[in-house]
């Protein structure tokens, strides 16, 4: 029961990370391997604001979201759009995007290390809390609740608003979206920026209960990618289920075997997905 609850709580934050990456890869068609660094930057911002001004990470979210949005929009507009325009095929774009975002991720790591090479340790709401008979840290629960709120808002925006509909249209087929009068480049930039902002906010939330440092970004990128692929690219419902599965499996392995093996557990799931359901949990097999 303890495992179930803390696994679900962890999965809740993974949902947020995966939604960020899903917008960037599913809509903007950019395989963003610097996604984890966005999380690290969010965590660093939260750490700074909390230790210097004692402002709650919950408020930091409202600061981080717009900054990360603008930052990611600029990245897309000036670094990635040229690649999109010059790419002859989707394969070309993928290779270019992978290499370019590797570059960005190393640059971001370099910058974060020069700003703060240590761990982002701070204590926020680290009090025990009773939940359905098992004890969890209050910060995990708060992070989970905010992750759920943000995920729901994002889901409603995608499914109810006009802009959300344009985003979904581009996700399904950029070529046809253009035919019905959608500015694909603009919508892609929007999706990329929102995706990055959501990731940074996830970083703020994660930093309240996990101690991060400059180098862990790639682990989060890895996990987000595994979730997105397991859920099916562009499939929000699949990503939510996949995130919860990953959270549960990781918590189980960490509790019963060894916390050092969580990445191996994630890999094991990834391998199963690749072997049996490469199209995602709810995807249809391609012929």
């Amino acid at each position, binding site marked *: 029961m303890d495992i179930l609850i803390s696994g679900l709580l962890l999965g809740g934050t993974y949902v947020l990370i995966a939604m960020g990456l899903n917008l960037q890869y599913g809509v903007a068609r950019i395989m963003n391997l610097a996604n984890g660094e966005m999380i690290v930057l969010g965590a660093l911002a939260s750490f700074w604001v909390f230790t210097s001004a004692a402002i709650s990470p919950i408020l930091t979210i409202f600061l981080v979201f717009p900054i990360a949005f603008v930052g990611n929009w600029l990245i897309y507009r000036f670094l990635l759009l040229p690649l999109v325009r010059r790419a002859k095929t989707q394969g070309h774009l993928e290779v270019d995007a992978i290499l*370019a975002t590797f570059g960005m991720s190393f640059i971001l790591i370099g910058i974060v290390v020069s700003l703060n090479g240590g761990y982002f340790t701070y204590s926020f709401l680290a009090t025990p809390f009773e939940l359905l008979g098992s004890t969890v840290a209050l910060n995990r629960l708060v992070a989970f609740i905010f992750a759920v709120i943000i995920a729901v808002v994002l889901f409603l925006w995608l499914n109810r608003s006009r802009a959300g509909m344009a985003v979904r249209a581009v996700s399904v087929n950029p070529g046809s979206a253009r035919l019905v009068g959608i500015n694909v480049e603009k919508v892609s930039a929007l999706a990329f920026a929102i995706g990055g902002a959501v990731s940074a906010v996830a970083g703020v939330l994660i930093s309240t209960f996990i101690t991060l440092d400059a180098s862990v970004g*790639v682990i989060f990128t890895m996990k987000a990618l595994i979730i997105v692929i397991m859920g099916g690219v562009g499939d929000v419902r699949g990503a939510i289920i996949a995130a919860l599965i990953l959270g549960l499996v990781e918590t189980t392995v960490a509790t019963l075997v060894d916390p050092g093996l969580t*990445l191996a557990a994630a890999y094991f799931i990834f391998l199963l997905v690749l072997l049996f359901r490469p199209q995602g949990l709810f995807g249809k097999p391609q012929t």
Partner: protein
Amino acid sequence: MTPEDTRNILIGIVCVAIAACVPLVFNGYWLSVALTAMMYIALSTSWALFSGPTHYISLASGAFFGIGGYLVATGMSDYNLSFWLMMAVSAVVATVFAGLIGMATLRLSGVYFVIFTLGLAEMIRNMVSWLQNNVLGSRGLYVLTDFTEAHIYWMLLTVSVAVFILGALIARSRLGFAMRIIGNDETVARHVGINTARAKVLLFMTTGFFAAIVGAIIAPRYSYIEPNLVFSPELSFLVVIMALLGGMHRLWGPLLGVIPFTLIWEAISIWIPNFTTLFLGLAFLTIVYFLPNGVVGLLEKLRGGATP
């Protein structure tokens, strides 16, 4: 053999002869830089054998390299086996491992493959550390041989020459032809009856084979081996960057990337060590935006030749 082939072989022999004399002229610091460069020449060139034609970015070099170094260390330190035996064992293990990874991921789109290899070295490192702490119970391993740096350098030179010969042979074999078609258009390749998955897995296995051998040869240089040292994700990125910087559409392309990059990297590590990660990032961006075909592509453009 055309006259051009004969000319290329002669140039190759002269280059190898010059490279073989390096330990006789230099020692100490410059020999160790040359050794590092030679290591990356073998790694990057064998990496490009697979990634050049297919455009699949493999980040598994660090994992295979680690398997080589770690198995040699375990065999010699814990079981008193000979260096040569363990080198052979590690090469076989890495080749089989590469085959399994290839079969699981290379049937699918290239992105899955990149993602899978991205965390591979880190995952193996976690598992090896866990095994050591809980099952095997030893932490550090010693590799004690009477090899000097010059010996290691010559061994790496031999491996590099083997990679070049194999690369040249593959390029004119049916497999090499198949790889070029796959690289241009995989659908076409499948329709003309090429078993694309098999061809890709085979070449990926050669990459794993050579990376493990290089890892095994390098092990005596460190003498003391622990998982954190040999399973380094950074190595995979350096291999990728050097091969791309040189250019992958020529067999000797990576060579032109390795030599300048190793020198710059050494300089930065000495003078501004905190800058290395940032530099790695800038190098990636430079390649993507300004040198998409590497140094070789740039040279060919300057000479006015056609780039493929």
